[in-house]
């Protein structure tokens, strides 16, 4: 009984918040039906998103120094980052580290009350990307693997490039595909898109020019003596077909998707001539090529226990530049409507600076409160969801839990958030968990 009340209160909060934003004309009707009905309605209404770009700020980026600034909290809390700037949406401010994103505020929304309370990297990263509490019996697949299944292979995805791509390296600390298995693991490109030549693992080989690739392929054809004796045999044909498709990636259109020299040099400058900026550009090209899910694992990470301020001063401008240009570019090309972009780490960082040695001005893991940037694919821009307390220590309004965030992303892409997942042993498993023990305040209806 108590749980029901709790749940209802969560929903009420949502509705109140929704009504507060008068922009949402449909709020009245949605508020009148059950959360389940609302979800169904939202799914029917939306499902615009075809692709997702996830920028994962591995290590956990500070929320108070970035998208949820607390300039009045005092030096012990803000350190040197006590300046804010106005955005192109009146009333919303960001830390002054993000001037370019500030000019794109109308294209995305910020959740300032993301919470789960877990302070371990692995466990928090698992929860934020699978929606399932860590430590259970099953290792669940993350969002990208579920997209690879439901928007990729299940829908007969025939793209040259695998349906789930990671730029450039997998996180390595958790298995993205979980029990779904190897097929749903992301294709990790390796290499560096900001280098002279973006060496994509298995696609663009170091020191081997296209001419040599062509020559080698011909040589292999000539020396494939056994198969040339019996071209009609099933095994031979299958081998030939798989080589054909591999070479479409290595020498054909697939390779071009990764070839940034085909882009206007000025645009490349605007994205930023650094790894992250060029990764954003590759992500856009992948989405254009129809890839359903792209994850950028931020190069370098954000685990700033020490050397916090210097790292932030170095990385934030790059994040700002790449992400802002990506949003603008997607918008200009009409792709933002069908592409969800979401960006956050596994947790925020402690709002109070740790000035003691050995940290000497660092911030620690903080699962109680974090900010998330979300845009496109039908998500509204120019809004703030939830609110954190005065110093950013915990959600003050409308806490958003991982299932709420991921459930909204699935819904916008037309994936039933409780759909069954195929477990190899036939065990019962669903995309997201449900039940009274799952903390939730409902989908992000205020921006859907």
């Amino acid at each position: 009984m108590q749980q029901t009340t709790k749940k209802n209160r969560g929903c009420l909060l949502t509705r109140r918040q929704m009504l507060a934003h008068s922009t949402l004309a449909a709020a009245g009707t949605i508020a009148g039906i059950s959360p389940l009905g609302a979800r169904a309605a939202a799914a029917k209404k939306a499902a615009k998103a075809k692709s997702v770009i996830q920028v994962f700020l591995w290590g956990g980026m500070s929320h108070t120094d970035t998208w949820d600034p607390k300039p009045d909290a005092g030096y012990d809390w803000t350190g040197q980052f006590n300046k804010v700037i106005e955005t192109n949406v009146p009333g919303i401010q960001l830390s002054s580290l993000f001037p370019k994103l500030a000019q794109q505020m109308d294209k995305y929304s910020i959740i300032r009350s993301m919470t789960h309370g877990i302070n371990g990297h692995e466990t928090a990263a698992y929860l934020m990307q699978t929606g399932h509490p860590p430590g259970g019996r099953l290792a669940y697949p993350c969002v990208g693997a579920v997209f690879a299944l439901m928007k990729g292979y299940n829908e007969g995805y025939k793209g040259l490039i695998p349906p789930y791509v990671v730029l450039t390296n997998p996180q390595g600390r958790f298995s993205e595909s979980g029990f779904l298995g190897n097929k749903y693991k992301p294709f990790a490109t390796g290499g560096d898109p900001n280098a002279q030549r973006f060496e994509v693992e298995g696609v663009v080989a170091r020191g081997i020019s296209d001419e040599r690739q062509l020559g080698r392929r011909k040589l292999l054809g000539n020396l494939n003596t056994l198969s040339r004796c019996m071209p009609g045999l099933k095994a031979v044909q299958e081998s030939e077909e798989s080589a054909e498709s591999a070479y479409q990636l290595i020498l054909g259109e697939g390779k071009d998707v990764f070839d940034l020299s085909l882009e206007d040099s000025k645009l490349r400058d605007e994205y930023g001539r650094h790894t992250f900026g060029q990764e954003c550009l590759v992500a856009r090209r992948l989405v254009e090529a129809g890839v359903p899910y792209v994850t950028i694992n931020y190069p370098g990470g954000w685990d700033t226990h020490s050397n916090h301020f210097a790292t932030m001063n170095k990385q934030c401008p790059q994040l700002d530049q790449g992400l802002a240009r990506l949003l603008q570019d997607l918008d200009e090309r009409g792709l933002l409507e069908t592409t969800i972009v979401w960006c956050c780490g596994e947790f925020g960082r402690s709002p109070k600076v740790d000035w003691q040695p050995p940290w000497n001005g660092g911030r620690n893991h903080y699962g109680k409160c974090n900010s998330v940037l979300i845009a496109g694919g039908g998500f509204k821009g120019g809004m703030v969801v939830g609110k954190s307390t005065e110093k950013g220590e915990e959600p003050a309004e409308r806490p958003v839990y991982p299932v709420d965030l991921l459930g909204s992303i699935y819904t916008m892409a037309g994936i039933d958030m409780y759909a069954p997942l195929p477990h190899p042993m036939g065990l019962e498993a669903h995309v997201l968990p449900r039940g009274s023990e799952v903390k939730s305040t409902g989908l992000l209806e205020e921006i859907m």
Partner: protein
Amino acid sequence: MRGNILLYGALFICLLVLPQQSRASKDLYSSLWAPVPESPIDKLVFAKVKKAGYQPRFCTDHVFLRRAYLDITGTVPTADETRRFLEDKSFNKRVRLVDQLLQSDAYADYFAMKWCDVLRVKAEFPVNLWPNAAQAYHYWIRTSIRDNKSYDKFVREMLVSNGSNYRVGPVNFYRAMQSHTPDAIASTVALTFMGCRTAHWNDEKIAGMSAFFSEVGYKATREWKEEVVFWDPNKPFNSLTNAPAQMAQYRERRTAVFPDGKSIRLPHGKDPREIFADWLISDKNPWFATIYVNRAWSWLMGRGIIEEVDDIRSDNKPSNMALLKHLRTEFIKYNYDMKKLLRYILTSQTYHLDSIYEGDQEEKLAKLFAFYPMRRLDAEVLIDAINKVTGSTELYTSAIPEPFTFVPANKPAVALPDGSITSSFLEMFGKPARATGMDNERVNKLSDTQKRHLLNSSHIRGKIEDGSVVSQILNSKLKRQQMIDELYLTILSRYPTIEECAWINNYIAESKLSERNAGLDVAWALINSDEFIFKH
């Protein structure tokens, strides 16, 4: 060297007589002599093949050499071993090779791996044996295979075993399943030792068999994750089954029913598992020998006489009933000597047929074993072969438990004792999860991702460029032709043809690459050829 000259000579003549290159290439793989059936296996197989209007052909020596190495030991021969075999002019060299390989340690490693798939040897998920127990189980299996323990003894030891999972390897048979209820045990026993999938059985049948396993006890000890499996006559009735009512009845009356329908009163003071085991391993049991000969045949010939291998039932007809019966009878006559049965198949002419087939009846003739079917190497065998021919190693790890397990670099993948110890290559190439013990868990179909990995990954490229064997050949003082010979002997276990040498010389001339880079490309091409990736 004389073999080389002879081979070249033969090819030269063929080129003169039959100018099409395809004919010449075929002679590289299939012999001009038509086989004359010798053993009963051949008579039974050839009768059906002839009826289908097909004339089978023998494979050539180098094809046989590579095939026997891969099928018996899961490895490829070295250049020296190849040379020696090709130069050997003795009449019975193929049989001698089979005998030599069956005595090798590599045979024990490879066949232990096959049994570890069937018997689900894996530290964690989904069967949760735990690392020490997986090692003990693997050790027992490998030792049994090495010592050629008779099949009936091998199976009986597992079925009636008692003791600690760390100390008595075979008790892990009862732990390597996801549920420990009597019906789950019965299902696993049926699949493993009878080749029957109990999904096809009715509840009564499974309940009757479950009664034999209703007194299997499990208890923890004070050592972490140690578990003792034992006969527990006072075990309370376990209700987790599809047919609790029937099972309760059987248990109450102390009756059990064999899968052939005969019921038996279980005497007090005797472990019911022993009664079941003795029924199972009897010569008259219709399933026991059948599943083994079907597995053995499929391991060597690429498909079971009954297919799928572990799906024996009256409505799944064998493709050659007489052959299956014959092998069964022989196996029983051999007193369940596993190696002797393998040898019997390996020395039949049927096993020596070529793999060249061009017509449009592939599926039909494959079922009749009219030719040796081409199939991709197992994940473990493939990476071992790549490592061997390039002279490189691979890192295998298990993340369970912490601290992680690392394996010495020179350990072949085939010899890994525990299914949880793996690498991304093995996962990509379909190493089985060892979840069910079913034969179809291993998928050897070549996928696009696998092909791309072989063709162009930094992983494989690194092995070719940095591996000691390829480098040694390319850095040697050998003349170019000898270098090409050496690459072919190492990678494909044969000499190159005149035509192939011409292609290569042409490539070196046209590509304008350095001699070393051109050589690397040749090695790359040979490793990526179907002749390397597939058994043939």
